[in-house]
């Protein structure tokens, strides 16, 4: 049991980060705080992939003449890193769209509090 916990310590950190991110997205009322939570959540998944690519005693995946290319165990797995480059791009694009939406919402309602915004929305629905 102890080995299981210590041996996977990177993943425990990742899952704690993930829980913090989800908490921020769901519980916090301020839209910007929700976005901070979203960012933490996305980063935790990126760290999850990067942690999974790691190998003990291996080096960066750049061909080193001293090590040769015969034994893949000498290099860490580069594929998750490249996948995560794409995921980072996706995250940046999502954040860009989200911040643009936040700016529009603030200009129209002068508030970023979700409960207040929803109240306002329902009120406008009724008056229409």
């Amino acid at each position, binding site marked *: 049991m102890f080995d299981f916990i210590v041996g996977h310590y990177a993943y425990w950190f990742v899952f704690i980060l993930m829980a913090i991110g*989800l908490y921020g*997205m769901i519980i916090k009322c301020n*839209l910007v705080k*929700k976005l901070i939570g*979203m960012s933490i*959540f*996305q980063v935790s*998944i990126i760290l*999850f*992939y990067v942690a*999974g690519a790691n190998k003990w005693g291996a080096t960066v995946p750049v061909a080193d003449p001293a090590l040769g290319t015969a034994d893949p165990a000498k290099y860490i797995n580069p*594929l*998750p890193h490249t*996948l995560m480059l*794409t*995921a980072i791009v*996706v995250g940046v*694009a*999502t954040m860009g*769209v*989200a911040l643009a*939406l*936040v700016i*529009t*919402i603030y200009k*129209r*309602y002068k508030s970023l509090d979700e409960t207040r*915004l*929803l109240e306002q*929305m329902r009120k*406008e629905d009724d008056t229409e």
Partner: protein
Amino acid sequence: MILSNSPALVPLSLLLAAIVIPMAAFRRRWLAYPLALCASAFATGISVVNIIRVLTEGTIHYHFGGWIPPIGIEYVLDPLSSFVTLVVNAVSLMVLVHARRSVAAELPDKSMPFYAVVMLMLTGFNGIILTGDFFNLYVFLEISSLALYGMIAVGGRKSPIAAFRYLIMGTVGGSFYLLGVGFIYMTTGSLNMADVARIAPSLHQQPALVAALGLMITGLGIKMAIFPLHGWLPDAYTYAPSASSALIAPVGAKVGVYAIIRVIFYVFGVEFVRNSLPITEILAWLGAIAIIYGSIQAIAQKEMKRMLAYSSVAQIGYIGLGIGLANPYGIIGAVLHVMNHALMKACLFLVAGNYRLKLGHSTIPRLDHRVRRRMPWTTAAFTIGALSMVGVPPTVGFFSKWYLALGTIQNGRWLFLTALLVSSLLNAVYFFRILEKVYMKPLEGEAADDGSVSLDEAPASMLVPTLVLGIALLLLGLLNAVIVTGIISRIVPPGM
């Protein structure tokens, strides 16, 4: 050349249009619409070619850049994917024909970016459907979601809030899916769906693989808007501009449905799913609850678009129930309902768009018999759509419900059968109250037929697609046996 590359041409032509439209239409605004229409028509044409190729040659694997999977990314054209791309492209083409006038009326100075974003959304949808690679699917999922957020946010004053809430939910969904892919990659060492399907049985229900299944279905369930995860849907559909909701509602959630069918039945397989997590059982129950909940909510709505949005929640419940039954009839019913619901919802949302253009609103209590005198054809299309939603033969809506009912009987699930039948009655309640208003109820203090209202139909560019969809509901209903035996019966996954 064109024929051998036909699988890749569908998303690529749309992606090209998404890039060309802002460049070409930057100075000449009028160019945006014809370019978008051409790209969509081309994609629909290629989808027809694709489905004919699949029916004659069998499953086609297209390897990008000549890299053989699992190293390279492949596109897979099998009966399921070719059928769903055709439905998505054909319905979007019809809605795009309709969109010109409603975009010009609702978004006068935003038409160019709007069409570019629509093209991006369709690229994403087609990519999700055609790809045979898990990570590629994630990228297309996010492309289409980002486009959807933009399309919703350009609506009225309240639309950015709806888009923001969808963005938060959608990102959670996409991230859960990505996490699931991570688990799959770490246990199987592959991202290719066919490769994972080959490796998965030899891993004997490893917990990481079961976790991957659960995470992916949860993530895709948010995109599909299955019952407790549907929170983003009603606001998003209601506050989006008419053209957006008519594009998103028929095809948007279906892509999530498709991905779930692909993951459950083609990657993990029925055997694995039955022995690991009760995913299919959960989906069936959530589907049954969604059917009842969505229908009851739809009855309570005053605004037609919002009513249609809640009815979408119910209709997605039918599809979820069909998947959850996990027997051939259930799958046939679910896939047939993907097509039927796309046609019905497109037809009804176009009707709502026509009403909005001509009457200036689509509020149900304000409709009366003058609407029918003023817009007889639009109202006729609405009637066909409504009858199909209720499930009256020979409209398409009857046949998918028929197969779903057969599926529940085959599994001996009488409770689900009851939910199906009760929901048909509930559908009748919320559609017939509108039909009653437009066909029977005269205004207070006014004779039933005073002939004072003159004919004032929607313009032809809006009326024709509405009627084409309405006629398709009848025609495809009559031809349903051809579709089911020709295409859908080939979709029934292995192991059933």
